[in-house]
């Protein structure tokens, strides 16, 4: 099979580095497969004229692929050279440009779009909703299935860092068979600090005092720092209040407007009925006080978290 032709203009647009890297890797693989010589130009150290020099035909013929990363940090010289090249494209030269966002380099960006550049969007993966979508895409493009609970467990366990989320996803895809659910994710990532924190928080918000305390003690005994546990507790209460005061609407709508993942909305909706506004207020105060003590304001950080758990589980039923 003949290699697919490389589009002569490729625009990789957006700040999410892992997506940018992937777009570049796949484009360059295509270019190399088509026999093109790949030339990388660094926006930060660009010397005027270099682009046009590389774009001129080489003595030995053959096609070239010029890669300019970080147009959003490009000097005026580089931008002018890019515009010149775009105005007078060289034969057998393809151009790949990445732009992380912002106003700088906008003119080049617009020109490329107008010339019909093949655009790859790399939007930031920030909220839990973005992360859930990302995981689902990772699985579906590998033709694999992951349950909603599985996505939730994975995002909770390793969602802090998108790269880690990506590598955890590909590990699960490679190492397992069939549908991936939360139990499978737990086998791989259940020992993570975050996962422990979530279990403690889940039990606390659900009012399971004994279970929450048991999980906390177990976590502390295995060397888990109480700080992230408190952070997770705070985040869950925050979501509960947001969802509780957001009113009606589908989970998807709410998720979008609150920057949460739909499963988080559903989870909060299941719990909210057990809580009064006053109870939630008491709970948040308890977490803030515990965080202060954990950060050195109190003598015994573990006791501080235990006390918060007691206060919160009691506040749950209170009307």
């Amino acid at each position: 099979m003949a290699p697919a032709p490389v589009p002569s203009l490729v625009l990789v647009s957006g700040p999410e580095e892992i997506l940018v890297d992937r777009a570049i890797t796949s484009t360059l693989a295509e270019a190399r497969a088509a026999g093109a010589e790949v030339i990388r130009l660094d926006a930060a150290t660009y010397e005027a004229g270099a682009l046009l020099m590389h774009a001129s035909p080489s003595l030995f013929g053959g096609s070239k692929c010029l890669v300019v990363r970080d147009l959003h940090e490009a000097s005026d010289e580089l931008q002018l050279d890019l515009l010149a090249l775009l105005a007078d494209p060289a034969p057998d030269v393809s151009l790949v440009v990445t732009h992380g966002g912002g106003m700088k380099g906008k003119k080049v960006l617009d020109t490329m779009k107008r010339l019909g550049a093949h655009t790859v969007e790399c939007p930031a993966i920030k909220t839990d909703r973005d992360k859930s979508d990302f995981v689902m895409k990772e699985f579906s493009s590998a033709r694999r299935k992951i349950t909603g609970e599985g996505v939730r467990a994975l995002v909770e366990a390793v969602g802090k860092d998108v790269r880690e989320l990506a590598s955890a996803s590909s590990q699960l895809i490679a190492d397992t068979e069939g549908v991936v659910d939360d139990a499978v994710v737990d086998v791989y990532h259940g020992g993570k600090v975050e996962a422990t924190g979530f279990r403690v928080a889940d039990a606390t918000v659900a009012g399971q005092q004994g279970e929450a305390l048991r999980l906390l003690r177990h976590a502390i005994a295995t060397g888990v720092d109480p700080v992230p546990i408190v952070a997770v507790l705070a985040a869950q209460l925050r979501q509960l209040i947001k969802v509780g005061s957001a009113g009606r609407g589908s989970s998807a709508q709410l998720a979008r407007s609150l920057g949460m993942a739909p499963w988080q909305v559903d989870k909060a909706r299941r719990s909210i009925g057990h809580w009064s506004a006053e109870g939630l207020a008491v709970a948040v105060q308890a977490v803030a006080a515990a965080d202060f003590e954990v950060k050195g304001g109190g003598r015994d950080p573990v006791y501080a978290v235990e006390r918060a758990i007691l206060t919160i589980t009691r506040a749950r039923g209170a009307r």
Partner: protein
Amino acid sequence: MSVWRDVIGQEPTIETLSRAVVDDAAMTHAWLFTGPPGSGRSVAARAFAAALQCPQGGCGECHECRTALDGSHADVKVVATEGLSIKVEDTRALVQESAMRPSVGRWRVIIVEDADRLTERAADALLKALEEPTPRTVWMLCAPSLEDVIITIRSRSRHVRLRTPPVEAVAELLQRRDGIDAPMALYAARAAQSHVGLARRLARDEGARIRRRDVIAMATKIIGVGDAIGAAADLAQIADEESTASSAERDAAEKARLLETLGADPTARTQPPHVRAQVASLEKEQKTRATRHARDMIDRSLVDLTSVYRDALVLRLGSDVALVNPDAMDKVRALSGVLTAEQLLGAMDAINEARDRINANVPPLLALEAMALQLRLPRDLGF
């Protein structure tokens, strides 16, 4: 004209310092300037340095005066840190420098703007210089309060306490020095509670005024728990915006200054590797500072927020004290109508508690949420 012109509302201090300039018996080798943020500690120290260098004791006009005031005098060294602490290596270098005789001036002056940020070891290194003073060398240390300075240093320096300058004096300074018109200068001085730097920023930057107004408005809008959580998020964001807006300028200026000291051409496309490395480390430092700065901004917003409750309390108790927010009278009045004196004090306590917690590294959003929940009003005030 005099070198003391911009040292406002500090008559007793000026008297002490002026006497030291002319009377050897009133002079000493180490001074400690304390005063609330924005009261002009470093302005006072610079003015003192200028007066010491000036042949006429601080005319404010001559070359000595001007260079000492703007920080370019060869024998006046101003140490300002944006970092979290002043390190022992930096202090050792200063101590060495302090042992030298003045090169052109009458005194060698070393002004340490944030003596409260001396690490313990750095303070020890400094102590040596204070214990064995070099003739013609003067140390001027600045800190918010005596408690912020290690006791051994405190006991070896003469203390000068600046007070919060009167609102009118700050307004007058803004008019005279910065060309700001009278009503705006008065508003800004009042709203900034006499913090000179902040007042200037408020007077000049409409964005800062809007952000302040938004913070003030918050006090009358929190009714349910959802409002409280939303207000906390807004507050964190307002501080974030304010921090970004004010640091962008400074970051760029610092980079320019660094390039200048390295002798690099700031317009050059490509910098040589050693310059690039230094620029990269500066940028990293600026980033850590931004986090700290955002926290400072939240603290400032909380001071602003406290002022509304304080005004409401003043109104409620009928005390004869000037209000900080006469421009937000409707809100102040509404609050004093709906909350008892005790509840107003409770609100102020809640805000202070949040400030303490943020200082202790509690995530700002969580501390603000706990605070805002305590600021919930018994009913909608219609704002």
